[in-house]
């Protein structure tokens, strides 16, 4: 019994050991393949059987307040040829004719053979047939194995379809996402543009809001059938998920923007100005409805415009605002309770305050008996100085900061200027202390001035300047800018300033030119000088008009500036534009006309 039972036991033991060893070997190998080297092997197998394919993540659109597309992503195609394949095709055809001997293709034969195809291909991509042949022969002369040459870049779908229909073996197309701006130069200076070949944002909102707009390209690979490249089901591997960019919604209205740009450019040409900006802002929200910067860049073709004209000067070009700034000083004095609109002073031509400054008016006049209203109507520097000195420099400076001057607006436009309040009031010299009362010795941007008038029109509450309404990501999430206003001056001070500016509109020297029948308007002109990049004043003056309407219930601010209008170097150059733009804005938004006439305030006594 012992013998018979022990023998099988030994056999079992032996086979068990063999089995365990065998299984052990398998397990080790399995772990090695499935776990240790899994990634490398997978990658290797994927490489061997499939190629990664790029999935484009489209760049987001930029739309205006009504959803009109201002910037749109489109697919363009680069037409690529393979000179080597073209030569090979000719070679093979010749070989077929003479199967016995070894053939070679001379350049003449090559040209003769590919000429018909080239003649068909050329016109489709905007070249002549000879040019196409030229590309091939020159590439082959450089490198006989040349396999890649651009024939045309970024052709549109029509040309792509036409090339495909020709079905030439050595021609193929590569996708190349591109950007179009269907409305051309409408808002071009705001939108900015991309670099043509690689899509890098270069300017404007394209640059500032790239985080919202940019899509992420993905990558997938899949196995495909050998014959016809049909993807094999279940073999798709997503290496990286493609993600489309978000849609950027602006506060701009494209129709109004077009109109404003058109009017501004027409007047710029008429008066021979270097450049002009027009800003339209909604009083109650601080939203920018239009910002015209002329000359304007057409983002479809940025190179057609001078480099210096491709930005938005409304944001980037600070200037001394001049007399439009007097409204701010007046509001500060009223807010401090140091004056009323009918307070009386005697304004001389030259005012020599005790601190040694020397203030002149722009043209000689005898002493005038003006009220604060009259000071604004006549735009008297001496009169404004007499009112401005009633409050401390520090207080005026603090008010300027509260009005949003001296720092970038909430928009954060690329290269946006902060403006310069000439440092701190402690650094102001005696002349600057007075000059800052009537808008000299400090700089602001056009948008900042529009924001000051928005504050005055909105009962002293400044709303954040908004150009971007929000960004809607591909997942449907929307971000919106904050819309919390801040009180800068008392409602009484703002309303009194508004009433005074109405008298400026009604009685000022441009009253005939900027009249808008049926509406009460508050406006102020300004003439100032602009410093160039080197700090020296540029030739000529910057003439401007800022104002709002309807004054009884302000809805819109319009601010117009023309730089160096050589044919008409005064605010008269800006006034017609102010009138036309404001009329259009009131008409477009169906603003109810003012009922009662503007309240009368005495300008003289």
């Amino acid at each position, binding site marked *: 019994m012992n013998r018979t039972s022990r023998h099988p036991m030994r056999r079992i033991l032996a086979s068990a050991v063999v089995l365990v060893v065998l299984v052990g070997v398998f397990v080790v190998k399995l772990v090695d393949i499935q776990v240790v080297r899994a990634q490398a092997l997978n990658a290797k197998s994927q490489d061997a059987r499939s190629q990664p394919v790029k999935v484009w993540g489209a760049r987001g659109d930029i739309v205006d307040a009504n959803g009109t597309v201002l910037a749109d992503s489109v697919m363009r195609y680069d037409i690529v040829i393979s000179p080597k394949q073209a030569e090979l095709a000719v070679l093979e055809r010749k070989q077929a004719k003479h199967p016995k001997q070894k053939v070679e293709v001379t350049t003449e034969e090559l040209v003769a053979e590919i000429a018909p195809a080239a003649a068909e291909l050329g016109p489709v991509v905007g070249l002549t047939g000879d040019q196409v042949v030229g590309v091939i022969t020159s590439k082959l002369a450089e490198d006989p194995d040349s396999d890649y040459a651009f024939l045309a870049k970024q052709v549109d779908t029509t040309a792509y379809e036409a090339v495909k229909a020709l079905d030439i073996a050595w021609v193929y197309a590569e996708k190349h996402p591109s950007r179009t701006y269907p409305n051309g130069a409408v808002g071009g200076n705001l939108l900015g543009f991309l670099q043509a070949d690689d899509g890098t944002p270069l300017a404007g909102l394209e640059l500032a809001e790239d985080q919202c707009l940019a899509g992420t390209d993905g990558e997938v690979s899949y196995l495909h059938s050998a014959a016809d490249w049909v993807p094999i089901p279940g073999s798709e591997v997503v290496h990286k998920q493609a993600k489309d960019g978000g849609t950027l919604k602006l506060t701009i209205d494209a129709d109004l923007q*077009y109109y404003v740009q058109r009017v501004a450019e027409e007047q710029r040409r008429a008066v021979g100005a270097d450049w002009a900006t027009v800003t339209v802002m909604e009083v109650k929200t601080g939203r920018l409805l239009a910002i015209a910067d002329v000359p304007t860049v057409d983002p479809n073709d940025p190179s057609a415009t001078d480099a210096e004209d491709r930005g938005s000067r409304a944001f980037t070009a600070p200037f001394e605002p001049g007399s439009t700034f007097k409204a701010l000083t007046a509001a500060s004095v009223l807010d401090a309770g140091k004056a009323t609109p009918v307070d009386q002073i005697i304004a001389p031509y030259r005012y020599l305050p005790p601190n040694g400054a020397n203030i002149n008016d722009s043209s000689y006049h005898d002493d005038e008996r003006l009220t604060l209203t009259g000071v604004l109507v006549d735009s008297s520097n001496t009169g404004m100085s007499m009112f401005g000195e009633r409050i401390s420099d520090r207080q005026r400076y603090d008010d300027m900061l509260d009005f949003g001057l001296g720092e970038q607006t909430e928009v954060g436009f690329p290269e946006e200027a902060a403006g310069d309040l000439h440092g701190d009031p402690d650094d102001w010299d005696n002349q600057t202390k007075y000059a800052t009362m009537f808008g000299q010795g400090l700089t602001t941007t056009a948008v900042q001035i529009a924001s000051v008038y928005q504050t005055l029109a909105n009962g002293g509450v400044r709303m954040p300047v908004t150009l971007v309404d929000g960004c809607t990501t591909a997942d449907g999430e929307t971000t919106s800018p904050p819309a919390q206003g801040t009180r800068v001056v008392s409602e009484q001070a703002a309303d009194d300033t508004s009433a005074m500016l109405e008298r400026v509109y009604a009685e000022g020297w441009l009253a005939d030119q900027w009249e*808008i029948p049926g509406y009460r308007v508050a406006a102020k002109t300004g003439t100032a000088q602009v410093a160039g990049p080197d700090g020296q004043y540029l030739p000529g003056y910057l003439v401007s008009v800022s104002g709002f309407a309807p004054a009884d219930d302000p809805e819109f601010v319009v601010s117009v500036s023309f730089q160096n209008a050589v044919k008409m170097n005064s605010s008269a150059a800006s006034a017609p534009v102010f009138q036309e733009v404001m009329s259009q804005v009131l008409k477009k938004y169906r603003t109810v006309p003012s009922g009662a006439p503007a309240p009368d305030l005495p300008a003289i006594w």
Partner: protein
Amino acid sequence: MSAVPAQSLPAPRRAPERPRWLRPAPEPGNGRAKPRLAYAIIAVAGVAVIVVAQLLLSIAITQGAYDIDHATMQQTTLDRQEQQLREDLDRVESPQYLAANAEALGMVPNSNPVLLRLSDGTVSGDPSAATGGAAASAPLVPNALIDGVPLVTEQPAGETPKGETAAGAVDEAGAEAPVEAQAPPPAGDGLPTPATH
């Protein structure tokens, strides 16, 4: 042997079973049931069915792959077409193109707003004829995309910018304009008001 079960079972019950240990082994072949043919057939048929089903499924999936591929290609073509049409539409929708067409048809902008208040018939503003600038607006706000797109006046009658016939839109507008001018709304019985609620 008895020590282990003693912990769980009473020993006396286990004791009588001991003789079973010494029972002779059953004769080989006695306990094994003879396999029946039916089982084999069922098993083989089952395997066959599974194989065929998998084959059919695989064929269906492959067919589906070709269908998908075909549909995807169709979609690509249609997407391209859609993009092309949208680009054309955006082009002709642009304000520059509208303005150029309006000017070509002899229209001028009127920047003088005149409003009529229906409640009391007050006209605010000074009604005056539009005096548009003689200068063409085209170069003022350029748009490189509409270069070479023909204006309505430059097209053969009855064709849209896309070249498709559109039932003579231009002719129609031209023919109806004088008719409207001849028939002003009757005045005297107050202002005409639209019948809306």
